């Protein structure tokens, strides 16, 4: 854990602010000093400035944490997906992207995020909806039932793939299937993740149950 925290200075700042605030608050609770100007200033740090700094850096750390595959896989219904991504022998799109250093531990977010102007906000709102549904409806669902009942909400957009694979590169257009299907790929009438092309993205996507 120490290695993980030291790998990101934001975590260290958040924990330092929280520690400093906690020490000052405990000092106030134990010593019970009179409410002098000095006490007010100490409490301003302990109850105001340091906790606000902790909340701010903690939010940043939290938002970063929600991008990781470990976070997505922490809901049990998602473990088959994260296990597949972790499988170095898997040939699914998800797993191959997980082995790409540009995606790495954030391959779920990399492919399922929105990339528009409000993409990050919309993605986080979608994530909140996932947590809400998980807590209320799917917390006790078996994996077998989850595979039958949980599906992607809207069809996967080719524009997400095109965020990296722009369809402009000569090497991409040198593939004859790409070149012949270019208009249909760009307008989304054929999915990049179709079976027979690059899909399915996960080992159990679009497989009849």
């Amino acid at each position, binding site marked *: 854990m120490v290695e993980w925290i030291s790998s990101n200075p934001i975590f260290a700042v958040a924990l330092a602010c929280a520690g400093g605030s906690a020490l000052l*608050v405990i000092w106030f609770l134990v010593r019970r000093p009179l409410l002098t100007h000095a006490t007010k200033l100490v409490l301003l740090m*302990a109850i105001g400035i340091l906790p606000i700094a902790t909340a701010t850096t903690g939010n940043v750390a939290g938002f970063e944490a929600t991008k990781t595959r470990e976070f997505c896989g922490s809901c049990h219904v998602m473990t088959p997906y994260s296990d597949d991504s972790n499988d170095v022998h898997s040939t699914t799109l998800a797993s191959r992207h997980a082995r790409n250093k540009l995606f790495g531990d954030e391959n779920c977010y990399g492919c399922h995020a929105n990339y528009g102007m409000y993409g990050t906000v919309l993605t986080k709102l979608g994530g909140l909806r996932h947590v809400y549904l998980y807590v209320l409806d799917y917390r006790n669902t078996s994996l077998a039932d989850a595979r039958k009942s949980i599906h992607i909400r809207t069809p996967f957009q080719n524009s997400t793939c095109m965020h990296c694979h722009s369809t402009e590169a000569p090497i991409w257009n040198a593939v004859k299937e790409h070149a012949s299907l270019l208009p249909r790929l760009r307008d989304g009438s054929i999915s990049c993740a179709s079976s027979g092309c690059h899909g399915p993205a996960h080992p159990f996507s679009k497989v009849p149950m």
Partner: protein
Amino acid sequence: MTALRVSAVLTLLGLALMVWSIVAPTPLPVMLAMTLGQLFGTVAFGIYLVVVVRDIRRARAAAK
């Protein structure tokens, strides 16, 4: 002073939730930190501000 002690305890609770979300970033701690943790922190700071502003007003009134 009782109000300030309540504020201090709320601060500790809020900090605990925030730290929990940092060391164990799974859905439950992260959601709790961003909702209850920040609510506790905001209420605690609000109580502090009310107490301090009242104290300053009292001190000014007494000086007059």
